[in-house]
């Protein structure tokens, strides 16, 4: 690669979303002491504006699609898909946060700044084509998320969540870094296409070496996407973290982690696919099964959704197991659908839970359908989508994943996965039952009317969920087009 033009204007444009987010994050940090406390809606609005700017930045970057910084970044359709996804997740996280932060009397700019940094890290992950950049993106995203999880510093559970997340997360990152080091030692490169070339070409390193490296990276990434057997942190962290942050964690970092998962395993390690397929197969099945069956027993909605999130990671792993472009496209589509439905569901939880998140039990949803029909209807859409009922994005995503799996002759995984999704229907139905078939509870009676920001944070994902279910073509075409990664 030509070393002469290592940095140029084109590269800057391809790096635009990250630049915007980092600068705006820093601006927000600096603004905090300057701005009057009571006027803190400003922070939220500013961060939404920065995210919208970053959205345009990603589109501009896509117009200049191609490698940047000597191949360290690869701005292609795949990267742009995930950049837009994590930025939209960011916007949908900030919207319900206004009310939440006001309620907790914790309106500072650092919340928004951390969110922007985390998203910048995820954008970097989406576009990274080099293990070092991947690692940097992962760390930026993770460290900001650790702090966000413990953002309510007076809350014991939030502290526990943050500490647990931080310790286990660092541990997992260590595994990942080990893998990177090994693969660098084996192939002499951290660039994904070059690793691929080294693994397949003449004088390839010992397969054991490469295999161990791949396995170590799998452990690290498996943790980040909360796939079994590396899922144990997820329920505690999801339950303890402030609800908008939980929503964010379950959608943004997860999507970005899957982006690098796909990028690494479908480019660098694709040639040794026969080796890692059984591992991912088992992990997919374990994630689905553990997630769904554990969720059956939960009474806390956040915890329930945490286990459901593990199960959904399993579905995406099924798409990875398919090891095909269709599988990659299916994973991309599913992550988009999942982001909408999950963030919407968490927004309702956040709305209902009240000050200090008192109401988080399934029972607290009782009678919501009578007291707030609009909120209940939105949550119904999200839940039906999580179940996988047709005309929702969740159904089409699942359909597309299992279609890819069957194309790759993964008959048993498909059957077990689909049966799993029937089991899952039970715990989502429990919430529906509570909302519509019981008399209003204290929580439903006390629930405030929807604020404009929150309404938007519900309506946008609801429309997105239905749109992906009824007219999936538009997103699907883009995913299909960008699923063949640069190799």
């Amino acid at each position, binding site marked *: 690669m030509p070393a002469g033009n290592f940095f140029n204007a084109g590269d800057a444009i391809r790096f635009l979303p990250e630049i915007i987010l980092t600068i705006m994050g820093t601006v927000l940090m600096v603004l905090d002491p300057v701005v009057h406390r009571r006027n803190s809606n400003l922070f939220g609005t500013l961060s939404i504006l920065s995210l919208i700017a970053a959205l345009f930045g990603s589109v501009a970057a896509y117009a200049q699609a191609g490698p940047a910084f000597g191949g360290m970044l690869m701005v292609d359709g795949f990267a742009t898909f995930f950049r837009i996804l994590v930025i939209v997740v960011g916007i949908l996280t900030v919207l319900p946060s206004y009310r939440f932060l006001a309620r907790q009397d914790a309106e500072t700019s650092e919340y928004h700044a951390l969110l922007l940094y985390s998203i910048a890290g995820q954008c970097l992950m989406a576009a990274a084509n080099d293990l070092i950049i991947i690692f940097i993106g992962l760390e930026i995203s993770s460290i900001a998320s650790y702090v966000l999880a413990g953002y309510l510093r007076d809350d014991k559970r939030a502290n526990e969540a943050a500490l647990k997340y931080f310790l286990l997360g660092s541990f997992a990152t260590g595994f990942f870094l080990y893998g990177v080091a090994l693969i660098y030692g084996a192939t002499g490169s951290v660039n994904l296409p070059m690793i691929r070339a080294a693994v397949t070409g003449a004088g390839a390193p010992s397969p054991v070496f490469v295999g161990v490296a791949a396995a170590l990276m799998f452990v690290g990434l498996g943790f980040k996407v909360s796939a079994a057997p590396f899922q144990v942190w997820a329920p505690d962290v999801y339950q303890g973290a402030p609800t908008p942050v939980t929503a964010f964690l379950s959608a943004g970092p997860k999507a970005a982690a899957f982006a690098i998962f796909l990028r690494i395993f479908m480019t660098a390690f694709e040639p040794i696919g026969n080796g890692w397929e059984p591992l991912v197969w088992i992990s997919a099945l374990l994630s689905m099964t553990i997630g769904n069956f554990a969720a059956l027993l939960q009474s806390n909605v956040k915890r329930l959704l945490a286990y459901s999130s593990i199960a959904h990671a399993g579905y995406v792993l099924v798409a990875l197991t398919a090891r095909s472009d269709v599988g990659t496209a299916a994973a991309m589509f599913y992550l988009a659908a999942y982001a909408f439905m999950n963030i919407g569901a968490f927004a309702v939880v956040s709305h209902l839970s009240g000050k200090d998140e008192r109401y988080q039990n399934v029972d607290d949803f009782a009678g919501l359908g009578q007291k707030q029909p609009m909120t209940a209807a939105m949550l119904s859409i999200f839940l039906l989508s999580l179940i996988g009922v047709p005309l929702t994005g969740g159904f089409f995503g699942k359909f597309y994943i*299992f279609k890819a799996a069957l194309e790759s002759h993964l008959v048993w995984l498909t*059957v077990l996965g689909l049966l799993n999704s029937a089991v899952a229907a039970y715990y989502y*139905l429990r919430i529906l039952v509570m909302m519509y078939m019981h008399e209003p509870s204290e929580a439903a009676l006390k629930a405030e009317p929807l604020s404009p920001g929150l309404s938007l944070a519900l309506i946008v994902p609801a429309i997105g969920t239905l749109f992906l279910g009824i007219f*999936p073509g538009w997103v*699907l075409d883009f995913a299909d087009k960008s699923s063949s990664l640069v190799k």
Partner: protein
Amino acid sequence: MNLLTVVLFLPLIGFLVALFLPRSSPQASRNWAIAISLITFLVSLALPATFDRATAGEQFKIDTIWIASPEIHFYIALDGVGLWLVLLSTLLTPICVLISWRYIQNRVKEFYAFLLLLEVGLIGVFIAQDLFLFYVFWEVSLVPMYFLVGIWGHERRIYAAVKFFLFTMAGSVLMLAAIIYLYNRAGTFSYPAILSMLSNGRLMFAPAEQMLLFLAFFIAFAIKVPIFPLHTWLPDAHVEAPTAGSIMLASVMLKMGTYGILHFCLPLFPSASRTCAPWIVVLAIIGIIYGALVSLVQPNMKKLVAYSSVSHLGFVILGIFSFTQLGLDGAVYQMLNHGISTGALFLLVGLLYERKHSLEIADFGGVATPAPWLSTAFLITTLASIGLPTLNNFVGEFLVLQGAAIANYKWAVFAAIGVILSACYMLWLYQRVFFGETSEEVRAHMPDMNLREWAAIVPLIVMMVWMGVYSQSFLPPVTKATARVLDQAQVNVPFRVQLERFRAATARERSAAAEVARAGR
């Protein structure tokens, strides 16, 4: 404008508008629901009027692309079986609106919205010719029914609703897997295209493959029918549902299963269907007799009618798996009959419940004195359900038994026991409820039918007589369609048998050649 599309989309528009009607005025929702469902019914009457009875193929076909990749079409069309099932749905929806007029006082707007959405799903299932579209409608019809049972049902409604949802869901995910598998093999979701590929040999299944695919489809349908021993959700759902829910569930929703078996299982997997037929017939006969015996001892009227459904649906399955023209015709006719007469039974039981707020047979007695017209309507329905000649069920049961006798005489003998038992439990029910001493309580609570109730029951009684006296109005298109099913179920078999023979022969030749070569060396 395609007539079928109008029939499908009218209730959908009705549903969407119903969502935005004011919550404060339940009367507006009622008026809207009755208006839109009546209009749908009247428009759907044009379907049989313009249906070309001379051809067996699909009519009112519309085929536009919905999703480009994977290629999914909005492909709907009507054949002779779907025609009557669609009419059954459009006829029963306004009746259900009428019957819920006073009974539903709570969350009226949502009730009628769900009822209309249910109608969309049900019509869609019977007209979808794209497998993906079929699955979409199949699942879409599940959601409103779940809410109808769960919100407006009786005491154990939640248990019943969840059980209903999970049973159906478990079956349908397997069907989804099979549909995707079919797509990956055939490269299309279009059902007619897959059938033509099967018949010209461009698509073939190995026997084991065919068997698994057949089972995946069949179990989904069997749960819906329901075939013994998968029927346990049915008594719960029927008993707990509000009257309108019971009617739609029994009259139309169960037909989704039998229609599916007839429309998909037989033509797609003929040899697997034939292999399994004896086992399925045994289950069907067990269902017939078991359902009847359980009905006999039910103290609860609604449960009695629910178990009688298990028994009646057994006849339908028996007819389908007799693989005879008469049996198939009878099965379809019996589907329609059961829709009309069991719908009417649930309706009348609902009227009794509205008056006395009880479903226990023991709480009634002597109802005929204060409510003679109600009793008359119930009597006609009872006789129809038993299978009295000149009323509808007789025609269907006769055809099924005849078809079964052609296939295997013993089947007909055992199934006929069910007919006798049905007379026992229905007449005994009638006797206990309508005759005997009229207690003071019954007299006080039992006004005769009012105009609205008349309007709901009369169309059904007219249909019972019409279908019993002049079945020729209905049967010819059915015969055309079932003949085609039989034809497909036959055409696809010998071809594959030949092919397997051919394969076996070539394999033998090859091994013989190898033998010769080895000997030569």
